[in-house]
């Protein structure tokens, strides 16, 4: 489905340049699920942005179905790769109703049977027709994220980029959204790249997981091994230990890896 090879991303130029991603490789088969975990600033979200064409790629190649992507993403790419953002309060236009958001997606890609598509996708993400003409400020965080998921899925993409889709939500709502995503994956045969700082969530949602630190992939393992704490790299083991909740003994042993 998608292959990333020696990807580098540098924000800014000259003295203010910041290398956020320093050469990473991974591959994802069609229908597969891949997780990227790491602490804040490890470059995991930047990888997603680079794939979506929102970050300046300064090195390496990204291939979609074997074809390398250029600097500009075409309509075909947009139709097959969609993204869900972290903050459901910021990713919906404050003046657009749910209906407008979904209708616009259809208009951009020239889809037919728009009325039927909108009604069906709202139903699929668990928002009834009552939500169709609401504005974002009339929705809760979880409902907004459902709208964002509906917006991504209405064009029937093959790959979904999920940028911490639940980290801005309450724990109970998080579980709902994760379950919804798993159901939708089953129904649509989606592949996804799931970025999160939560190891438990990623282990649950993905088949393979890469642990990132400081712009590089430290270790790539099967979700099974992550769940069993079967990790080789010291940084990966430290992240896992830290993720099990606050523990003074662990906190004292934390080391900065480069």
């Amino acid at each position, binding site marked *: 489905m998608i292959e990333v090879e020696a990807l580098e991303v540098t924000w800014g130029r000259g003295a203010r340049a910041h290398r956020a991603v320093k050469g990473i490789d991974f591959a994802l088969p069609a229908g597969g699920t891949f997780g990227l975990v790491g602490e804040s600033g490890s470059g995991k979200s930047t990888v997603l942005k680079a794939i*979506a*064409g*929102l970050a300046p790629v300064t090195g390496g190649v990204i291939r979609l179905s074997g074809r390398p992507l250029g600097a500009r*993403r075409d*309509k075909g790419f*947009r*139709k097959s790769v*969609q*993204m869900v*953002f*972290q*903050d459901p309060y*910021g*990713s*919906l*236009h*404050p*003046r*657009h*109703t749910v*209906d407008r958001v979904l209708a*616009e*997606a259809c208009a*951009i*890609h020239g889809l037919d049977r728009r009325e039927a598509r909108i009604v069906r996708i709202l139903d699929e993400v668990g928002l009834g*027709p*009552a939500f169709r*003409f609401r*504005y974002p*400020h009339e929705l809760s965080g979880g409902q907004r994220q459902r709208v*964002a998921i509906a*917006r991504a899925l209405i*064009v029937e993409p093959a790959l979904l980029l999920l940028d911490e889709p639940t980290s801005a939500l309450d724990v109970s709502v998080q579980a709902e959204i994760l379950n919804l995503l798993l159901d939708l994956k089953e129904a649509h045969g989606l592949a996804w790249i799931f970025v999160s700082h939560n190891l438990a969530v990623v282990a649950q949602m993905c088949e393979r997981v890469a642990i990132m630190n400081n712009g590089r992939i430290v270790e790539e393992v099967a979700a099974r091994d992550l769940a069993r704490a079967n990790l080789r790299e010291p940084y990966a083991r430290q992240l896992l230990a830290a993720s099990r909740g606050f523990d003074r003994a662990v906190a004292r042993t934390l080391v900065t890896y480069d």
Partner: protein
Amino acid sequence: MSGLRAWLTEPVPHSRAQARAQAWWLAWCAFRANPMAMLGLGLVLLLVLVALSAPWIAGRSPFEQDLANRLSPPSAEHWLGTDELGRDIWARIVWGSRITLAIVGIVVVIVGPLGLLVGTVAGYLGGWVDTVLMRLTDVFLAFPRLILALALAAALGPGIENAILAIAVTAWPPYARLARAETLTIRNSDFIAAAIVQGASTPRILLGHVVPLCLSSVIVRLTLDMAGIILTAAGLGFLGLGAQPPAPEWGAMIATGRQYVLDQWWVAAMPGAAIFLVSLGFNLLGDGLRDVLDPKRGAG
């Protein structure tokens, strides 16, 4: 009527048209709750009404001279008195409202879209487009507005059309600045990134996503500036570069009344009061609109 109200307040709208009507209805309810804004709206509507019904309410021609009755004070015959050529001031103010309305309308039509376009394009695209457009804006901003309008009106030749054009050409830069500043805060938000990921073209993002968010502040600024625009038009008229005699333009009327301002005050005071009322109306309307259209209020 009750059917319409039920349709407008139904909790779950059934169609796009109903949803849009409900959003407008909510905004109207918020606007209606502000008495000063309603007063402003009333004054502006009054201006429109007077302009539309000028032939019927003026009573006589604004050009009809009656030299025997020149400079007569307000009376039952001449409600607001007569000017130095014996023309009825009431009729001239009523007919002059058409000129004022034309100034307001044409300036809005030119300034709003032009300022929005320049500002949003500069802010959204950034880079050299931004540099070129903003330096151009700076050039216009570097001159005092009235002076630039004067120069333009003088170059184009005196006349109300040229005065309007001169005002419009000199009034857009602050709007471009305003729209650009708003665009800069919007440009990096997630919903614009989402629109890009969705595959939306740049014109679609500009017109569908950026402009609606800038529009409210531009509309508010326009209504607040309207008073200034009317006064600039009056100023150009006063200086002889706006409407030419015998056109009943309010600023030009004040200019001729200036000579009699101590003994026959009504010649200058009546059109002055008209300008004051209309300016006040637009100002109050702008203040009220600001409260209703503020994006932070949330509703559309």
